[in-house]
C-alpha cells in the first residue's frame, strides 16, 4: 500500500509563474498539491503545508512581495503559520514572506543589477528543519536560481542573531554568491522554525534529467512534515 498523500496548498497570485511547476514537483515527491487562488480566505481544511511559489506577484510593483502580502489568502497562510504549520516560500514567495513579516530581512535588487538564471550550489547549514530533514548537515545541493531581486539583507545585529540560532538554513557554496546576499544567505527560517524562504528553486531540480534532483530533498522534507501534521491526528 502506498503512503497517503498529504495536501500541500500552493498559493497562486496574479503574476505567479512557478505555481504549476511547484505543484508538479510536489506531486512527484508524494504530495497531493492543491492550487489556492489568492482571493480565497481559507486554505483547504486538510492542508498539511503551504508553498508560496516563484513569479512576479502583482507585477512586483512598489517592492517585490509588498502587495501580495495583503492578499486574502495570506491572512490564512499567516494563521496557518501561527498554528505551527510548515510554510515554504520560494523566490517571490520568500520575498512575500519577508514583506509580510513572517520571515526576517528583505530581498533587494541583485548586486550585479542583472537578472541571474543558472544552477548554484548551496550548503545545508541546518538539517534539523522541516525543510531540510532529508538532507545531511553540510550537504551541497545544486539548485537553479532565477531572479533579479535576490540579494538578502538583514541589519548586522539581526544577522548575528540569525547565525547564532541556526536560522541561516542554506548558504551559497564556495563563495559563488549569485546576488550579493549578506553572508551568502540563500535561505532562512523563522524563529519558530516552521516558516522558510529560499531564493533557489527546488521545484526546478527534482529530476536529474533537468540537471539536478537535489531540490527534491527540500520538497520531500516538506511533504514529510506535512504528512506528520495531517495524519498525526488520524493515527
Amino acid at each position, binding site marked *: 500500500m502506498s503512503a497517503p498523500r498529504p495536501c500541500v496548498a500552493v498559493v497562486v497570485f496574479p503574476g505567479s509563474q512557478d505555481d504549476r511547476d511547484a505543484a508538479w514537483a510536489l506531486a512527484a515527491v508524494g504530495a497531493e498539491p492543491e492550487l489556492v487562488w489568492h482571493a480565497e480566505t481559507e486554505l483547504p481544511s486538510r492542508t498539511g503545508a503551504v508553498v508560496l511559489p516563484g513569479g512576479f506577484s502583482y507585477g512586483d510593483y*512598489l517592492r517585490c512581495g509588498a502587495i501580495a502580502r495583503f492578499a486574502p489568502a495570506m491572512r490564512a497562510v499567516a494563521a496557518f503559520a501561527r498554528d505551527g504549520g510548515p510554510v515554504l516560500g520560494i523566490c517571490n514567495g520568500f520575498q512575500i514572506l519577508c*514583506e509580510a513579516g513572517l520571515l526576517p*530581512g528583505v530581498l533587494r535588487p541583485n548586486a*550585479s*543589477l542583472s537578472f541571474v538564471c543558472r544552477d548554484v550550489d548551496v550548503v545545508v547549514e541546518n538539517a534539523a528543519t522541516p525543510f531540510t530533514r532529508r538532507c545531511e548537515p553540510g550537504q551541497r545541493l545544486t539548485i537553479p536560481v532565477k531572479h533579479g531581486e535576490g540579494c538578502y*539583507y538583514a541589519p548586522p545585529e539581526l544577522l548575528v542573531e540569525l547565525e547564532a540560532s541556526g536560522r541561516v538554513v542554506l548558504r551559497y557554496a564556495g563563495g559563488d554568491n549569485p546576488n550579493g546576499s549578506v553572508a551568502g544567505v540563500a535561505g532562512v527560517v523563522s524563529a519558530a522554525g516552521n516558516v522558510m524562504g529560499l531564493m533557489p528553486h527546488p521545484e526546478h531540480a527534482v529530476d536529474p534529467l533537468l540537471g539536478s534532483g537535489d531540490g527534491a530533498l527540500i520538497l520531500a522534507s516538506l511533504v514529510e512534515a506535512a504528512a506528520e501534521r495531517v495524519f498525526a491526528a488520524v493515527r
Partner: protein
Amino acid sequence: MRVTVLVRPKAGILDRQGQAVESSLKHLGFKVSGARVGRVIDLDVNESDSAAARAAAARMCEQLLANALIESYEIELPDGGA
C-alpha cells in the same frame, strides 16, 4: 489634498542602482561623487486638514509605501503645510 511621499534608501544601505547612475553620469563627463535612487509617490489624499493628511500618509508609509528595514520616508505637503 496632494501629498508627496519621498522614499529613500537609508543611509548606509548599499544602493547599487545609485552607483550605476553615478558611474553613468561620470561617463557623460559630469562631476558627481554620489547618487542615491529613491522613489516619489504623489498621493491625492481625501483630507482637507493638512495634519490629518500628513498622519494618513505616515500610516501609508508604515504599512506599505516604505520598508523600514532599508528605506526612510519624507512627507511633503503643499506650501510646506503642517
